[in-house]
């Protein structure tokens, strides 16, 4: 299945927003596809890319893989000097 860059980017954004909004969600591609009303295969590509750039955590492989949000590293009190 081929997916255009634009479509992939759109899905990435959608998934990122979903997980940012639901930081404790644990989803398979199939489960998320149902929630977002999207096809599973392109969604899986987007999810894997998000996992590759460390926005999502991925456990397991293939259809069994479960994705969850990885909270960015935050440090609130860094001394400038």
């Amino acid at each position, binding site marked *: 299945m081929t997916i255009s860059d*634009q479509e992939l*980017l759109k899905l990435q954004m959608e998934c990122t*927003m979903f997980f*940012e909004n639901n*930081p404790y969600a644990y989803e398979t591609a199939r489960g998320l596809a149902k929630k977002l009303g999207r096809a599973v295969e392109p969604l899986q590509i987007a999810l894997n890319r998000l996992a590759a750039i460390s*926005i999502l955590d991925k*456990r*397991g492989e293939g259809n069994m893989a479960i994705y969850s949000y990885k*909270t960015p590293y935050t440090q609130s*009190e860094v001394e400038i000097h």
Partner: protein
Amino acid sequence: MIEKSWAMDVRKTVEEIQHTYAEFTRLSILIVDGQGRPLVKPSSYHPFFKKLVDADEETRERFWQEVRHYAGLTRPALCDLWLPGVKFIIAPFKSPAGDVVYYVLAGVLIQSGTKEMLEEEVAGSGLYDESRKLLLDLVLEAEELSGEEAETWREKIGKLAETAERILRSAHREAYVRDRLSELRGVLSTARRERDSIDRTFEQFMDVSGGSDVMGYAERVGPGEYRVSRVVGEGGSGLQDAEFREGEGFLGQAALSDNPMQWTDIQRDPRSFFLKQNGIGEFYGLRCFPVRVGGEQLGILFIVSRKKVQTDALLREFEDVLIALVGEYIASGTIEARMERQIQRLRPLMEVTRFMISAQNTQRIMFMLVDMSLSLVWNPSSAIIVHESSSGEKVQIVSRGIANDFAEQYARDVAKRILRESTGANSAGFELSQTEEGQLMIEYPIVYAGKTRGVLAVSLSSEQEAEECREVLLALATMGSIILQSVYDQQQMNLQNERFLKLMYTSAKAGQDDQGKNTDLALRLLDEYARYGGIAAEEAPFLQRTAMLSVLDDASRSELNEAFAGELAVLKEYQEMLDSEGQTGTFSYSRPAQVLRTVLYFAALDEETAGRLHLTGVSPELFNHFRKFMAVRHTVQSEVVLSDGAAASFNPAEAEERGIEAIVREFGLSKREKEVLELVVRASSNKDIAAKLFISEHTVKNHLTNIFNKMSVSDRAQAIARVFNRGIG
């Protein structure tokens, strides 16, 4: 045929000139090609020429046989034909294509005083009938000229030949150029129509252009780096994907120039090594054309010629213009593709912006900026936001893909370089920097409330990538700045409103000793009750504001209606509760209203009596909970501290463990079911679970069915989600 290629006006011009010369010299003139065929209508005064023109094939052939004796002539000459003394001027000239000789024939002339002698000669020649008649005609009608006059006419006819040659060559060149230009226009039209098919344009150009054997395009792929992305022509395939740097060889040299460059006789030039190395073989010349947009070099179009070819200068010039135009099409195609990619990335930004606007929380907006910037860059490795803290001496970091210590070190560097500046933004709106480790970073200032308050930085693999994504990241950073400005404005507005409310409250309670004191106590109680766990931490300030509003009169409240709409709605419920106190019936009030009623009630009474009462509209659970809180408030220290950073300190492994324990307790899972669930949560397949627990897959399925039934979930994803939700809760 050459005659057909002449335009009618060219033929007329040559005829006019020929007639003028004929009239002037009183000679008959005929211009013929190398086969003796008239090229234009002859100027016939002598009957012999009339015969030639009247398509007397035999006469023409006989005449031509005579003319052919002078085939090697290179200059105009007085030639004897048939009979010594019967003269014609034969002036040769080059055909327009330069490949054959044409002739101007003028005659017939004889030396003055020789006519009678010639007549006798013809009479005594032994010729009969036609031949004799022809010669007699030639002689009788011929012009008698002195030797000087004949020489003058020879020169004149020579001039005519030169003029005819010039006119015909010019006409031929014009026709040739016109045809070639038309073909080249066809190439341009193809290039314009089929922008995606550059190879086809190249092929068509090579067909039309003389001496273009290999044509290609080298694309700029990085700073100073080029790669041959397209090449056509026999023997050129070795160049495909070959790479070179600026300054290396001829192509590298052309990459440094703003203007087209051309080299000839370069076979032994050391700069041709790149071409030889990539299989071009024998070649003579190279033409290069830079493809640029603004100040940016996008690539180089190049043409290799295998041998020396003489090309019309005008055509060569037109070819150069045409190639430059093809370059323009390539450039516009490249820019279009680049813009399309930008647009593809900009479109989802609208969604992101809507989402960020709804967040209204600085930290969440920073999370989004980091995540979105990583998504928008094609090969990202890391992104970081450095944001000033409220004190101004420290900074806050949100990052992904960067080692923690490096993130802190980078944050300090950015803070010194950018946050200390007044606006931070240069004219481009971004800066490119390189970290000590050599990582290229593109940095965008986050400017709001009049100064640079943060920096969004994304690591990139190359400057090329920076060019590709700089606009879209600028848009993201700008949107981030605007949204943070709106959050900041909202916070400032809330702060102002709160100050105003406190001022009004202070002034109102001055005239109400008891109620003022009670409300002050209620404010403290709300703080303490939040710490006790009775209400959420963020509920306390809301209820405190509502409590303060309760002291104000109606006119003052209406002033604050817009700023504290939520608080006033709760206050309205509170007042309804007061009115309904002691009445029976079913009442339904919001929890904040119930809390407010309870707190204000307890604050107004001493603890001993308050503990004994029930309040209409307040749930018994809440009332009893608060009563218990009041009873122990003197001894309760702030033991329960709620962390705002719950998300940041979230540990999935701990959540998993806690969640499974909670599920086992809640749904009564067996020990084996617990083991199966633990493996499910770790994303093991049925096969893996069977292997790890030394049971069959069928048994695993049975366990899973039981687990799902007990937990009331339909699949493993829901089961996992439930485990983590329990773990987090």
